[in-house]
C-alpha cells in the first residue's frame, strides 16, 4: 500500500478508537476495526494492554490480523486459553476494563442491534449474525465503546432489536434493569466521537472529524444528537508516523483499513 495516500475514514476510525485505550487495560475485542485499533494502541501509547477474546485466547503474541475470533492469531502462545463461559466470567467479575463492539443499528441511548432488520422477528427483511458475544460484552465489561460507519439508517430512531443494551430508555433505566456495568461511554464513527449526556444518557457530540459540521453529523443521524454548549472541538488526526505504523505494521495487507474499491 502506498504510504502517501491521504488518510481514509477507516484509518481515522481506527486511530480515534485506539486513543480510547489506556495503557495497562484489559480489553475485550472482536475482529475488524476494534482489533486494528487495539494493536495500534499497543504499538504506540499503550504497550501493556491485554487482549481478551471470547473463544478463550488472551494476550496472544501479535503476528497477523486474525481471520476468526477462534483462529490461531487470537491464542498464538497465549499464557492461558480459557473456556468461553470463564472468559466472559472474568468480565462479570470486574477483571476486564473495556470492550469494543460494532453495530448494524444504534439508537440515541446506545442500544445496538446485530440481530435483524425488519419489524417481524420470524420474518425479517434481513437476518444479521445474532448476538454472538455482543450482548455479553455490553452487559459485562466496565466501559463499552461502539465503533462503526454512520448514516441515517445505522443511527436509527428505534433499533429493530436490542442485541446489546445501552442506556435503554435513558435516565435510570439501565440501572433499574439490573445491569452490572457502566454502559456505553463512547461511539466512534466516520463523522465524529460521541459520548452520553450524564443525566438523560442521550448521545451527545463530543468532537467532529475534520470537515464535518454539526449539521452534517445531524443529517447522518435518524435521531436528534445532543449538542454541547460552545464550540465543538475537531477530532485529533493521526500523525504521519502513526499512519505509517497503522499501514505498515498493524494491517499491512489492508484487510480492515482499506476501503473497498
Amino acid at each position, binding site marked *: 500500500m502506498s504510504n502517501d495516500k491521504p488518510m481514509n475514514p477507516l484509518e481515522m476510525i481506527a486511530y480515534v478508537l485506539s486513543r480510547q485505550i489506556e495503557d495497562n487495560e484489559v480489553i475485550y475485542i472482536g475482529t475488524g476495526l476494534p482489533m486494528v485499533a487495539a494493536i495500534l494502541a499497543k504499538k504506540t501509547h499503550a504497550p501493556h494492554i491485554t487482549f481478551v477474546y471470547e473463544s478463550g485466547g488472551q494476550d496472544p503474541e501479535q503476528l497477523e490480523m486474525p481471520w476468526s475470533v*477462534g483462529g490461531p492469531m487470537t491464542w498464538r502462545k497465549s499464557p492461558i486459553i480459557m*473456556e468461553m463461559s470463564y472468559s466472559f466470567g472474568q468480565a462479570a467479575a470486574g477483571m476486564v476494563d473495556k470492550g469494543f463492539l460494532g453495530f448494524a443499528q444504534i439508537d440515541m441511548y446506545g442500544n445496538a442491534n446485530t440481530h435483524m432488520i425488519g419489524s417481524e422477528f420470524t420474518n425479517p427483511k434481513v437476518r444479521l449474525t*445474532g448476538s454472538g458475544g455482543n450482548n455479553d460484552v455490553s452487559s459485562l465489561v466496565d466501559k463499552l465503546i461502539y465503533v462503526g460507519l454512520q448514516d441515517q439508517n445505522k443511527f436509527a430512531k428505534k433499533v429493530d432489536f436490542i442485541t446489546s443494551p445501552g442506556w435503554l430508555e435513558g435516565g435510570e433505566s439501565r440501572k433499574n434493569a439490573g445491569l452490572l456495568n457502566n454502559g456505553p461511554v463512547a461511539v466512534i464513527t466516520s463523522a465524529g466521537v460521541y459520548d452520553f449526556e450524564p443525566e438523560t444518557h442521550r448521545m451527545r457530540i463530543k468532537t467532529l472529524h475534520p470537515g464535518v459540521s454539526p449539521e452534517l453529523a445531524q443529517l447522518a443521524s435518524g435521531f436528534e444528537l445532543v449538542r454541547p454548549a460552545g464550540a465543538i472541538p475537531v477530532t485529533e488526526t493521526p500523525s504521519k508516523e502513526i499512519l505509517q505504523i497503522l499501514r505498515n505494521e498493524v494491517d499491512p495487507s489492508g484487510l480492515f483499513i482499506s476501503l473497498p474499491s
Partner: protein
Amino acid sequence: MNFDYNQEALKNLKIEDTSLLDRLVDYRSAREAHLKKDHSQRDKRMSLHEAVAEYVQDGDIWCDSSFSYVRSAIQGWWEIIRQGKKNLQAIGSPNTNQTYGVMYGTVSHTHASYTGAEMRGIDKMFSRNLKEGKVKIISDWSHGLMAQGFKAAQLGMPGCFSKQGLGSDIINHNPYLKVMQNPMSKDSDPCVFVPAIFPDVVIIHVNAADMYGNARFYGPAVNDIATAAASRKVIITCEEIVSNYDIRYHAKGAQIPFNNIDAVVELPFGAAPGYMPNEYYWMRYFWEKFFSWANESEERCKEFFDEFIMGTKNVNELIEKVGGLDWVTKSRRRAKAAEGNNETDGVSFVYKIWENGMDVKDID
C-alpha cells in the same frame, strides 16, 4: 417434567407446540440417558459412518462444536448431512456450520446464537432460508448465556443466575430465559435465570483420544468440555488414536473423560475444511468461495456444497479437491508458523476475497 416457558418469548417466536422445547432443558432425562450407558472402559472405536448411523437420529438436538472454523467437527457434521438425517434442532455457540445443514433440510429448527461469516459479514444464505421458513428459530441466545447453560449442565446444576441478557430483546425471544429477582437480595436485583441445557448429540474433534474416549486437544476448548458432559450422546473424532498410556503420561492428560463418550472415530483431517490446532490450516479459499457464492444465490450454494459434501465420500476426497498432499504439507507448515511453532518466513497468511477464476487450492 412439565416446563413453564417464558410466555412472551413463545408469543414472539410464534411457538404453539412447546413439546419440541422440552428435551433441551430436561435434566432428569439427560441423567437417565447417561445412567443407561455402558460405563465400562471398553473399546469404542468404529467408523464415522457407523457412529453417525447409530448415534444421530432424526429430530435430535445436534450441537455444533468448538468455534466455527476452528477445531469444529465438520467432517462428522458432513457425514450427518450425507446420511440424510432430517429435522435436527441445531444449537452451539457459535452455530455457524448449521447454515448448509439448513439448505439440505438436515436442520429444521435452531437455538440461534451466531451465524455469520465474521470478517466477511453476514451469512446471506442463512438469512434467505430463515425468511423462506426452511428453518425456525425456537430460542435466541448470546454466546455467553448459552455457554452458561452448557456449563450449568456440566456442573450438575438445574440452572444458574446470570447478569447477561438483561434489558435486551434476547430475553423476550428465548422461551428458556426468565428475568428473576436475586433471592439473596433484599434490594431490587434482577437476574436472568439460565436453565442447564442438554443437547442430544455432539461430535467433538480432538487431536488425540484413546479407544475408551479419553480425549485431549490444543487451542481453545470453547464449550466442548461442557457440551461433552451435557449431551446425551457424544462422538469423538480425532486426528489419531493413542494408547491409554499415552493419555496417562502426556503432560496434558485428558480434557474430556471417557465416560462422556459413546464412539471414538479415528479421522485425520476431521476438522477440515476448518483449522486444526497444531495440525493444519483452514482451507482459506474454500471458505472465501462459500461466502461469495452464499451472497449470490441458493443455486450457487447448492452447486458448491453438492460438489464438496455430496460429491465426496470422505475427507480424503475433499483434500484431493484442494490439492492433495501439496495442500497437506503447506497447510501443516502454515499452522505451525501461525502458532509460533515454526518460523514464519516464506509463509503467507494473506486473504483474498473470492473472484471468478480463482481456485479453491490453497495457492501462494
